[in-house]
């Protein structure tokens, strides 16, 4: 897997090598400018979430971004992004690294380099408490049921491939897919572990539906522009450091993500 990543990264770097000034690497640039730009998705609860009440950012990747900036000895700047804009934001150098638990999927690997994963999640579903038909994971893929996924997430292609009976709808935003469920136009929506935490902790109506055995594991990591081995190596060094020195586990504990954290 690691070897495959490297190979892919090398290809990506070769393709997009011209877009980066050749005289100065990204790492040197970061250090010289004393500024680290980190792409986040501010709706990603417990990962990179902007609390609408206080407009403060919080989440495991926010904390780790601060750690990274501190390790590098530079200022930190968060750039709002999303899964839909991720590739273009990275390719367009809007940020040095995307830190919002990005699932490592082949579609993304075509355009992005990934660090070693720091989290992992299976596919999970959220339905309403009052829903009478969906009681277990097996109830999901039944005729007459409507399931929602957010467009552009890793779940969309996965569920299109897996579902056989249920109807799949893909609203543009994660918020829209919740609305479909709330209004009764859909029975459940598909998401990952961190998002289910948000739903269960912040709404009264959400109910978790888990697969009884592993359905599809997805590893989460940080994404960067391919072809920047020095920067990539520095990020990997940081990743290994936080896994080793307990900063990752500490941050995971803080946001109750221990079940999803990858320490090896």
């Amino acid at each position, binding site marked *: 897997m690691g070897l495959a990543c490297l190979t892919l990264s090398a290809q990506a770097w070769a393709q997009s090598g011209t877009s980066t000034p050749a005289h100065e690497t990204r790492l040197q640039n970061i250090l010289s400018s004393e500024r680290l730009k980190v792409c986040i998705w501010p709706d990603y609860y417990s990962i990179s979430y902007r609390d609408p009440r206080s407009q403060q950012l919080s989440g495991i990747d926010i904390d780790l971004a601060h750690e990274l900036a501190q390790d590098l000895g530079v200022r930190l700047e968060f750039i709002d992004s999303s899964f839909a804009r991720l590739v273009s934001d990275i390719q367009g150098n809007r940020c040095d690294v995307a830190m919002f638990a990005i699932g490592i999927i082949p579609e993304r690997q075509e355009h992005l380099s990934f660090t070693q994963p720091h989290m992992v999640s299976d596919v999970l579903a959220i339905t309403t408490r009052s829903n*009478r038909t969906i009681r277990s994971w097996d109830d999901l893929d039944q005729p007459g049921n409507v399931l929602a996924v957010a467009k552009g997430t890793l779940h969309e292609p996965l569920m299109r491939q897996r579902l056989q009976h249920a109807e799949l709808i893909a609203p543009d935003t994660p918020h829209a897919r919740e609305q479909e469920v709330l209004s009764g136009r859909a029975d459940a929506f598909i998401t990952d572990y961190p998002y289910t935490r948000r739903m269960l902790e912040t709404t009264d109506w959400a109910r978790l539906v888990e697969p009884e055995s592993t359905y599809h594991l997805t590893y989460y990591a940080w994404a960067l522009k391919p072809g920047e081995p020095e920067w990539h190596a520095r990020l990997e060094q940081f990743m290994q450091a936080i896994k080793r020195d307990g900063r990752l586990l500490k941050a995971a504990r803080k946001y109750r993500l221990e079940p999803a954290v990858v320490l090896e």
Partner: protein
Amino acid sequence: MSNSTLFHLADTQQGRLARGSVKLLIGLQVLLVVLVLAGVHLTSRHLRSVALDNMRSHAQTQTLTKTDRLEQNLNLLHMHLRALITDHPEAATDAKALRNSLFGLQSKLHYIRSLTVLEADGQVLLSTQEVNEGLLLDLGPLLPAVSPHTPDLLRFGAPWSGRDFARGKRLSPDAAGEPPSIGFFPVTIVLPEAPQWTLVVAINSDYFINLAPEHGGTGHLAFRAFLDDGTLLFSTALEDRPGSRTLTQGQREDIHLHHVGVRSWEDAQGVLQLSAFRTARNYPWFVQAQVSSDVILAKWREDTRQLWMISGTTLFVMLLTSSLLTARARRSLRREERSLEQNRLAASVFLYSSDLIIIADSEKNIIAVNPAYEKITGYSAQEALGNKHWRIRPGTDGASLYNNLWGRLERESSWQGEVTEQHKDGSLITGWLQVNAIQDEAGRVINYVGVFKDLSRLRESEATNRKLSLAIEQSPSSIVITTPEAIIEYANPRFLSSSGYSEEEVLGANPRILQSGQTPRSTYVDLWTRISAGKVWHGEFINRRKDGTIYYERSTISPVMDTKGRLTGYLGVKHDITSEKEAERNLRLAASVIANTAECVLICDADGFIIEVNPAFTRLTGYSREDVLGRPSSMLAAENRNDETRAAMYATLKTEGVWQGEFWNRRKDGSLYVVSSSVNLLRDDDGHITHYISVFSDITDIKQRQESLQKQAHFDPLTGLANRALLQERLEQAIVRARRQNQWCAVCFMDLDGFKQVNDTLGHKAGDDLLIIIAQRLKNAVRGHDTVARIGGDEFVIILSSLGSMDECDRVATRILQALAAPVPLGRHEACVTGSMGITVYPLDSGNAEQLLRHADHAMYQAKQSGRNRYVVSNKIQCDGPAQPEGEASG
């Protein structure tokens, strides 16, 4: 005495106190139980009402909240709907613009399932759910019930199942089956700006159901939204079926009348349901919250159960603890009581003890003495108290004994020994003194207690006991002592030796082990009858020894009573009388033999007086027993015929103890008889003669036969005189006697002169008569102890024994011849015969009998020749000279 009273007083007070506190404690426990039970009950009732009140208030609040929320959402919907056209006027005419507005509105309000525009004829013009388009919708009656096209008014229809109109169905009140898994209810409005259309909003009922708390703090409230006509719009209870009408007419009227309230209604199952309701202010529906009282009270029941459990446990623990404490207190009180009782006992021991008790302080000063002190020593307590001198009184024991005593007490805590003290009157008291040093916990001596036991009387009693014990141990009689249950407690050695049992075997056993089965049953019955009545029994047993042999026992069995007359056991004194029994039997046998034997038995005492005779005696002698008892045995003798025999008998008995011989006796009727007697002599242990026993039988017949035979052998049948054989015998006896007595005996040989003539003339008969008369004359002429024999026709020999001199011989010879010479009358005749006699004398004639006869015969011939009727002394003797040897005299 005052001491013991004091003790009693303290005792009873203590007892009362103990009982009082126990009662008090039990009372308190009962009170506690009652209070706790009452408290728990009241608390439980209170909690029940609190639970109901809380739920009532909670239900009311929740109803208000839910109603407000639903109403506000509908107000918001109303506002947005109103704004549809006013904000986008082009939408009133442009279907595309209208569709965009509808989607915009749908994305704003999450409870909107879909928005649909109906044309006047009810056909769907457009819908956010495209499948609905073109449908002809029948929403049924709508509330409020006004003209169908009244503008700007939200109207509500019956609920539908399904995701949208196209795939759903209006739910009727009487439909049955499972509640639909998904549904909605329609709300319509006619906008004043576009009165040609009716806008239908499908409201997602689940959205409002999800807003209800899943598990509210007071739990399980079921929320229902009803249209005013009683149609259920939606319910949080899964089992409720939207579209149904579950409320009664009365309940609906109540709700419409009061708008807000809480009621307790019984449901179809009779369970009391708490029901809160509130009507919407502006719309034709109301919200009802309902919960079963069972559910409300479930928590209360659980709490009450726990309360009871905790109270019960607490009560139990408290009761247990207090009971244990009570029990402990009672135990300690009892201990105190016991201790007091012991003190009281100790005091009474001190007061009433027959032993002298002295208590001294650590300095050995007497501080207390008991009444026995005064009795034993003669000194009063006042005289003793404060006496620095520990000793009772100086007696015979020296100071060394007391030095030894105190010395010992310093090392050990007690001393005991025998001491002799002196009574006030000077007499000596011997006793056993034990002195104990009483120490406190630190080991310091605080008191000395001396107990003196006066052994003087005990010693005497001991000596007596020892004596009695020895006597019993060594008694020749068997002595056995049993318990009142007849279990052997003691048996003396004699008992053991006579029964053959060991001590281990008899102790604890019943005397019946000795029973042989031969003792008559009545003996035992009599025994128990008597001793049960407290009397003494005498009798005999036939018992069996261990080795199986039978023995006879004479027993005296008596109950043993203690001083209070209570039975403590039985005493048996027994003699083995087996040998007596045997002797008695033998005696009886002997007596029977004696009584039945054919031989006469005569028993005399040492002096010869008759003391016993047997029946055979009476038969023989004719004397009855009474005739002879106490009389001398010689009374039986015939005159003095036995004198010589008797003398010989006594002589023989003296030396040999046994004599056999014959007696001549006379019967009571005077007849003579002769017995063969065997006499035994009995002596006592000292050798003194005690009895003579004579056994004899009548031998008269035998004797007479013997005499007759003897006569025929020794006597001349005609004259009765001795014949030649007897003469020979007598002569030899006479020679022996003469020699022994140093006397002479003479042999006179005589022949009758003239007998032949008589015999020839008068006949043989006359000759025989003559011979008989001559024989009688000869007998009469000689002395008693002389012998006359006829040895031939007319030849006679006369032996004169015990002659003192020749003269005596001459006189007898002369007398004989004279007697013969007298005429002999023979019938009518008379004959005259004389005698010629030759005489020789022993030992002057020293020949033997034959020689003497020959010599005498020879001398007779000389007399014949010398002229007859005379006697001639043999020339073999020298009449007046001394005796000469025969050979020389005849030679």
